[in-house]
């Protein structure tokens, strides 16, 4: 039997440093066969966990990116209308009659699989990532309920399709809109926060093995101080990684060494004009000085 520590170790071997809460939630979602709902600010690694999990499990990653106006025909299935039409024409030329054609054109061969249907028809359980569910409309959330609780999809012409294997479902949300309680109740929930100092250093060390420990410490201290500033868009983990890569690329060994290089590398952390203005040169230098 695998324990949650095993999962944590597996994930970190694949380059994803998961906090205890997250590792436990992933473990429970796997052990109980329930979907996992991850909430948190942008850039804390919600999407990445699905990718890493599919790597660890050797499973296929099926991704459904949600957007406003996403509907069943794009997420679940659609009939291949053109193919059906050609089949009807071909059949009528061959002199075939009604019921036979009807049965054939509403069969599996004329069905266009979309991510959700594909996910429940895989022989080996895939990782199904439903990204940014809060962007989809509420109707779509309702579609999801049947799939997430029963692992089945009902197609009027074909009947109910049950899951061949239960996919590992991961939903992510940025909180642009409140999700329904019905959806929340069906999921294992965890809130992914910005990582603490030690975790973020571990993440950085895992992604940039060449960087020396002292610089990693400085970078993390710098970014974490920056998150406490009054910014429109706080830098996430992805930004920290970019920042580290930028510093390495610029040949910086110490944050306080080269003010110009630090200022240049800030473009990877501050993504709006307002934030750029909020952290002028002197402030950046002061934070770097404290971090060193």
């Amino acid at each position, binding site marked *: *039997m695998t*324990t*949650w520590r095993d999962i944590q170790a597996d994930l970190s071997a694949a380059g994803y440093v998961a906090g*205890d*809460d997250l590792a*436990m*939630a992933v*473990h*429970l979602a796997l*052990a*109980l066969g*329930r979907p996992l709902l991850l*909430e948190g600010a942008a850039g804390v690694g919600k999407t990445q966990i699905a990718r890493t999990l599919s790597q660890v499990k050797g499973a296929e990653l099926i991704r459904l990116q949600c957007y406003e106006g996403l*509907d069943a025909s794009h997420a679940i299935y659609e009939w291949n*209308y*053109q193919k059906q*039409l*050609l089949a009807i*024409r071909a059949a009528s030329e061959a002199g075939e009659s009604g019921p036979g054609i009807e049965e054939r054109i509403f069969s599996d061969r004329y069905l266009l699989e979309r991510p959700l249907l594909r996910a429940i028809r895989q022989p080996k359980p895939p990782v199904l990532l439903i990204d940014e569910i809060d962007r989809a409309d509420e109707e779509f959330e309702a579609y999801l309920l049947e799939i997430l609780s029963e692992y089945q999809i009902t197609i009027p012409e074909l009947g109910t399709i049950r899951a061949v294997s239960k996919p590992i479902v991961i939903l992510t949300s940025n*909180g642009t809109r409140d999700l329904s*309680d019905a959806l*929340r*109740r069906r*999921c*294992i*929930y*965890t*809130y992914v926060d910005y990582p603490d100092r030690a975790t973020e250093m571990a993440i950085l060390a895992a992604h940039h093995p060449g960087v020396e420990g002292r610089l990693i410490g400085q970078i993390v201290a710098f970014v974490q101080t920056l998150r406490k500033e009054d910014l*429109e868009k706080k830098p996430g983990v992805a930004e920290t990684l970019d920042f580290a890569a930028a510093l390495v690329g610029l040949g910086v060994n110490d944050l306080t060494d080269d003010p110009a290089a630090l200022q240049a590398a800030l473009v990877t952390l501050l993504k709006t004009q307002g934030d750029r203005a909020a952290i002028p040169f002197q402030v950046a230098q002061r934070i770097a000085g404290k971090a060193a």
Partner: protein
Amino acid sequence: MRVHPPVTRFPARASGPVDRLADFMAHLRANGLQVGVQDTGTALAALTTIDALDPDQVCMALKSICASNRDDFARFDDLFAAYWQNRGHERVGQAQTAKDRQRSATPGQGDGATGSGTADSVDTHRDGEADQQGEGRLIASRVRNLMRTDLRDVVSPDDMAQASAIADRLARAIRDRRSRRRKAAKRGEALDMRRILRASLATGGEPVRLHRRARPDRPTKLVCLLDVSGSMTAYARPFLAFLRGLMGADGATDAYLFHTRLVRITDALRDDDALRAVNRLSLLAQGFGGGTRIGGNLHQFNDQYARCLVSGRSVVIILSDGFDTDPPEVIGAELARLKKRGCRILWLNPLKGWRGYQPVAAGMAAALPHLDLFAAANTLDSLAALEPRLAAL
């Protein structure tokens, strides 16, 4: 490493882990978490997959099952410690979320504390229920009071947020207009027979490509002009929160402040942090709170902005008390000029809500003939009452 759990006193009748867990679930419910019977089952199943003797693990596992939003997630550790680590059945009542409050404010609908608890904890449950209902009534009446309070006295962030929410609803009521005609669209409810037939000629009469039609949105654009002169300063903050709400509903809404000059504040109001935006602007507004030149400002608006921003699909909302230092003819003339652009003009006057108010101020009287709607705006109630009238415009 295993930490030995502090010994927990269990209810006398609780025999096994199932009872204890059920009682813990009842404890969570009493503290406002939404957990159902099904969750108890899930939690029991979860305990079999972890080391159930390690309190840290159990806490994390139960947290991921029982918490279902950020607030619950943040306070679960305390609730867990309070129950299992013998700090008594503490209620962490203050941390109730907005949603809980709403729910307990609608009597009869609350999920209550009807858990399958044991004898020992029945008292706690009763407390819980009484508290919830009590608080519900309190809040309901508070809300009613607030809705009738003159907006001058509305200052707390909560009230601001509510002003904002009402504005958001109003903006949607005005904005959601759909055309009666259908236009070709990628996805729509109706088939476009004409186009299908025309396209089918290319495929030998076979309708291979399906074209569709949908009713396009014809959103109404809002333009707001807020008077922040001396006589209106008391209303400036709630009205700014109101404007902020109007802005939120739609990306094309436009807003202006005026006193002796006209200032465009659209960009400032779109600040991510709602309260910060309103605070910043109310400072700005206070700084100028002097005389009013409504006529002059409308003239400037017509000259500078109206020609590119106001069209037949616009609704211009003026929030002002109508006390003008410019000659009244100017207001009349400028409103008539604005009206020629085909827009509709609403005038929301906080004084109109006062008993015995007559629009005798010369400016107001001159403006009246050009208005599509002249309404009171001195309480949140009066603002909310606008919704059906705006939708009917």
